[in-house]
């Protein structure tokens, strides 16, 4: 079956979003970096970055992203990295570190966006970013997104792992502690959760599985077969994020990519997934959460990439671990091989616990 996705309309949709969002998007003012990454990933998933954005426009975007990198002050070591948008005007006017703070989600999106735009990351302050990561990991192994918050969960573990993988430096992450936390989030039903004992959720499944994959530690899953089963059972034509919920376009990526990473490629009904996503397509471009609702950049990008998984011969391959084109991701991941990852932690201890888990 050939792809029926309205590629041109989606390219136009992503370009519009990159150029201007309506006033009600003020609710996303602090995560514009994430929106940018999503739109660029959507274009990359369609193989249309160069066609949609002129070289000059791509260079401009690179400049905006670098302008969000937090410069050093005497007190902001934990706040370094990239911020989610230009919320605070010129950096030098913000004497107060907490007001002009980076966060790991924005840093992850900034690095991915720069790579998609063809930048070589030469101006990224790598040691500052790794230093901030080191300060944001909690004793339990999970990560906070930025200082002074009680928020912490696998979303930020994933960002920390993705950043480390992209920069090829895992010295900011205690990978053993991360692994222990993720293993504790493996639910009795096979799914993965936000914290131990919470309900299994497709988004946290993705964050946990991608983190393990990036660390080269998928074998730490206590019952991988049951986790794969939980993931393939989320298919209900489209994918749902939790049991007994309606299918939602974004889980075609979160769960679809997890199935890929768990070695389940080809085990799901790709035609049914793509049929569902076509129902979520807006006639004006973009993909919505549910059929008949309004599209947004998150569902559009993740819907497009999830759709592309269904037609691997027609679209550029996207790396499930990073929401980056495989051509870029494989360069990064091969340059810093997983062997180096395990050598940074105190590997022997984990090997022991691996054995007891699988017995």
């Amino acid at each position, binding site marked *: 079956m050939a792809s029926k996705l309205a590629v041109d309309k989606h390219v136009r949709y992503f370009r519009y979003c990159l150029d201007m969002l*309506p006033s009600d998007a*003020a609710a996303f003012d*602090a995560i514009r970096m994430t929106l940018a990454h999503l739109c660029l990933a959507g274009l990359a998933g369609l193989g249309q970055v160069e066609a949609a954005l002129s070289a000059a426009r791509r260079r401009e975007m690179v400049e905006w992203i670098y302008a969000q990198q937090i410069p050093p002050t005497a007190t902001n070591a934990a706040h370094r990295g990239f911020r989610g948008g230009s919320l605070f005007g010129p950096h030098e006017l913000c004497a107060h570190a907490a007001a002009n703070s980076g966060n790991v989600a924005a840093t992850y999106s900034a690095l991915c966006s720069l790579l998609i735009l063809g930048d070589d990351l030469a101006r990224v302050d790598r040691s500052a970013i790794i230093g901030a990561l080191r300060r944001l990991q909690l004793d339990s192994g999970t990560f906070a997104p930025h200082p002074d918050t009680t*928020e912490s969960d696998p979303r930020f573990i994933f960002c920390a792992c993705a950043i480390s993988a992209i920069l090829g430096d895992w010295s900011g992450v205690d990978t053993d502690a991360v692994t222990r936390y993720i293993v504790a989030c493996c639910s*009795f*039903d096979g799914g993965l959760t*936000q914290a131990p004992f919470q309900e299994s959720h497709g988004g946290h499944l993705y964050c946990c599985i991608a983190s393990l994959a990036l660390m080269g530690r998928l074998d730490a899953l206590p019952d991988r077969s049951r986790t794969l089963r939980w993931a393939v059972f989320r298919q209900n034509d489209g994918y749902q994020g939790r*049991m007994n919920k309606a299918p939602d376009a974004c889980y075609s990526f979160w769960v679809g990519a997890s199935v890929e990473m768990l070695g389940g490629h080809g085990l*799901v009904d790709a035609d049914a997934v793509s049929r569902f996503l076509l129902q979520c397509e807006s006639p004006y471009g973009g993909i919505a959460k549910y059929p008949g609702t309004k599209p947004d950049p998150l569902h559009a990008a993740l819907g497009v990439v999830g759709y592309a998984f269904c037609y691997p011969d027609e679209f550029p391959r996207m790396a499930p671990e990073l929401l980056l084109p495989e051509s870029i991701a494989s360069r990064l991941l091969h340059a810093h091989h997983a062997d180096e990852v395990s050598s940074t932690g105190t590997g022997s201890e984990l090997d022991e616990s691996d054995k007891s888990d699988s017995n």
Partner: protein
Amino acid sequence: MCETGEKCDSGNDNVPMSEQDTWKDVAPISQDDGANTICPIAYTDEYREMMGYLRAVMSKCEVSQRALDLTSRVIVVNPGHYTVWVYRKKLVEELGSNIENELDWVTEISEKHHKNYQLWHYREALVSRLLDPKAVSEMTEEQLVVHPVIRRELFFTSSAIESDSKNFHAWSYRQWLVRTYGVWEQELGFIDTMINEDVRNNSAWNQRYFVLMGDGRGRPTKDAGSPMEGSLADSEIDYATDMIKLAPNNESPWTYIVGLLVRHAPAKLYTVLLPKLKELAADGSEYAAAMKTTPFYWSALVDIYEQQAKDLPDQADDLLAQASEVCDVLATDHDPMRNKYWEFRKDQLVPNI
């Protein structure tokens, strides 16, 4: 209302901030988005002005009532603004604001933003300040459950869950509350009510696992594979199969009972659950017929036979052959959407050497 801060400017909502006495000594800082931008937002004039003043007070970390009022206005429009939450927390602490009023404010905006992560985390921080979890260790569960702070939070989460019964944040927060303060007694009753209202509410099924296997005394078990009491396993099998009879094509009770037993009482899968399922399937009723058309019944059989083969090596060949046949039936008749998965699953069925 002015003492609590939040509504001080309410009479002035239509007057630009630049014309309000409260703000006349402040020079707003404009956004500097550069010449080349990504995903710019067509801000309303009100939002742009509000953010200009916010930048001005935040950049020098001004501690004042007017700053607190301003954060309220910003958060309502932009609850994902991560540093405003940090700033607000600091203001409330340093101004010595009334925590009860602050909690009322969070409750008020929860209606609009009930899916916002920061809001629930902030609520947790406020409640921990009202009733320090470390300070309640001397209190009994009976005393705690009638404590006004805990009573209110149980009520608040019940209401949030009743109006949106699968609200992930509300259930997560309720777990925090129950575990942190050790108030477990009411939970099974609450869960029963929720499951009776909607037997497909998987959040409620998960909460059941949390309450039963979370040790019930505020010490969630660390050992994921710890065995459970046989009588509890039996009563859960009864409970889950009763719910299966109500709606055989409901994934939640199937996954609940198989997952629970695989982890905590694997032998019960074939000594108790299997005979019970066979008995139900054979009784000629409407639900028996329905059950045999669901993928969940057959999928449970695969897991059960696989476990039995693992435990009883001398019968393993027969049991795995049965499991393998069930995979075929699933692939062709009862779960064709996942036919490739069932072929793959069948190949995984190998004797445990």
